[in-house]
């Protein structure tokens, strides 16, 4: 659609001059107005998720300017760069140093940080940063996510899941126990939100001290938490009890349960999720429990936008055979 130069020279009137009246008509159309709060909240949630994943791509030449502006403290810069090789770009993301390629930076960099003041290695006790703050405010105001295909509800519960995931990520990295991003720590209470039934259900799932649920990462990098509880789900109680699972992550299933349940293994869970149409989750929580009195698995899936949905499936859920019992139900 590139016009020949002769056309541009002969017919390129000043666009502000219009004798057709069309410009005036277009200018008079109503302005779309500010971005709806629900849209902004959704984007902030997606950005926060990207931040948690360390999704900043490698870049050049900007870190120095940022430091010169005083926007990134020298100590942090040095700590972040730490033992990185020269020329390897490091970006601070969500409370931990993450290299441009998404890998967690060296443990030495974490140890080098000043307590309290340095950002890397400090667990984010609460949503932090402008995004988090705005997101929290937006959700506190009862804003809803845009998602026309689902029943809209309060997003606070989903934020709790996101906060849990983010907190888990950061804590894991700060402990220096692994360099695998995307793994969620267990036995951490949600940082926000909660549900009326949480305390009741937490009694059901209370485990001996020190019990630790299995964690892992699905092939797509999503964090996965798998536990077994004595909860008895029904279609009516699915959202509430699933929320209780999020609020109070429990202990891992015994080995015999794992051997009997396809969904209690990461490969099996991944296939089950694909069958359910949840191909790219951000975080997944599985509870091996009962549904309508029968052994089942309740799966809670959080996507990149924070949308949180619960399914009840047979424990044999696998590729091509979901064994769906209930759901998806949007978490309240």
């Amino acid at each position: 659609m590139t016009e020949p130069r002769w056309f541009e020279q002969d017919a390129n009137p000043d666009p502000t001059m219009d004798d057709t009246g069309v410009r005036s008509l277009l200018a008079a159309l109503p302005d779309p107005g500010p971005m709806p709060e629900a849209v902004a909240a959704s984007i902030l949630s997606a950005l926060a998720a990207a931040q948690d994943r360390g999704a900043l791509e490698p870049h050049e030449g900007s870190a120095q300017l940022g430091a010169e502006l005083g926007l990134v403290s020298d100590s942090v810069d040095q700590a972040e760069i730490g033992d990185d090789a020269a020329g390897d770009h490091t970006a601070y993301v969500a409370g931990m140093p993450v290299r441009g390629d998404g890998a967690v930076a060296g443990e030495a960099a974490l140890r080098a940080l000043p307590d309290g003041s340095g950002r890397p290695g400090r667990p984010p006790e609460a949503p932090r940063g402008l995004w988090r703050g705005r997101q929290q405010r937006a959700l506190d105001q009862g804003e809803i996510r845009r998602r026309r295909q689902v029943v809209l509800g309060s997003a606070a519960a989903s934020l709790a899941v996101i906060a849990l995931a983010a907190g888990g990520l950061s804590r894991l990295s700060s402990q220096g126990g692994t360099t695998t991003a995307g793994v969620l720590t267990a036995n951490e209470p949600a940082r926000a939100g909660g549900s009326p039934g949480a305390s009741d259900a937490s009694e059901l799932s209370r485990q001996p001290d020190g019990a630790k649920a299995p964690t892992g990462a699905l092939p797509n990098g999503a964090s996965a938490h798998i536990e077994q509880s004595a909860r008895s789900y029904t279609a009516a109680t699915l959202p509430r009890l699933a929320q209780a699972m999020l609020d109070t992550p429990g202990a891992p299933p015994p080995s015999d349960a794992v051997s009997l349940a396809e969904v209690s293994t990461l490969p099996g869970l991944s296939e089950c999720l694909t069958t359910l149409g949840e191909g790219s989750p951000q975080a997944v929580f599985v509870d091996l429990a009962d549904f309508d009195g029968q052994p089942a698995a309740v799966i809670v899936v959080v996507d990149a936008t924070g949308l949180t949905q619960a399914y009840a499936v047979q424990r044999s859920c696998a590729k091509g055979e979901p064994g769906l019992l209930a759901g998806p139900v949007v978490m309240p």
Partner: protein
Amino acid sequence: MSSALSTLADHSDAQLIAAHCAGHPDAFGEIFRRHKDRMWAVAVRTCGDPEMAADAVQDAFLAAYRRAGSFRGEAAVTTWLHRIVVNACLDRLRRRRPTSALPEVELPDRHDDHAATVTRLDVRAALAKLPEGQRLALVLVDMQQLSVAETAEILGVAEGTVKSRCSRARAAMAESLGLHRGAS
């Protein structure tokens, strides 16, 4: 760090992008805060559908977040963002085009009346019928009030091309709407 945070709003867009690339956790949030409404308007007007616009503008801000390092400072950040948003909208539109036409969307206006609504729908329908390049030129120049130079930068074409597209688009719309030259 707190002092840096308190002065975040005082920094230019380019400085914020640099800070974001350098690892500042809040710099891109400030970019988002500053530009979200304008990018929203661009997306709605380009997509013609608030739902699609919401998806497109999210795509755009995520892309900008991830690829901030590609911003070279040769253009204004707002121009860079416009370009990303427009491209995100085009991507969404092209993906949907085989199955449905560009929808006609009526935005709420409490000062509405029937005749005015009909006119606006007609204008939007005429706009939607334009070839993509012409429609984008009018959206950016006539609706978003961007300069020809900025529009050319956003669309990646010569300024003369923007001018000619505007001229052709207006003529086509005028004919479609039954307007006569000199109407303005």
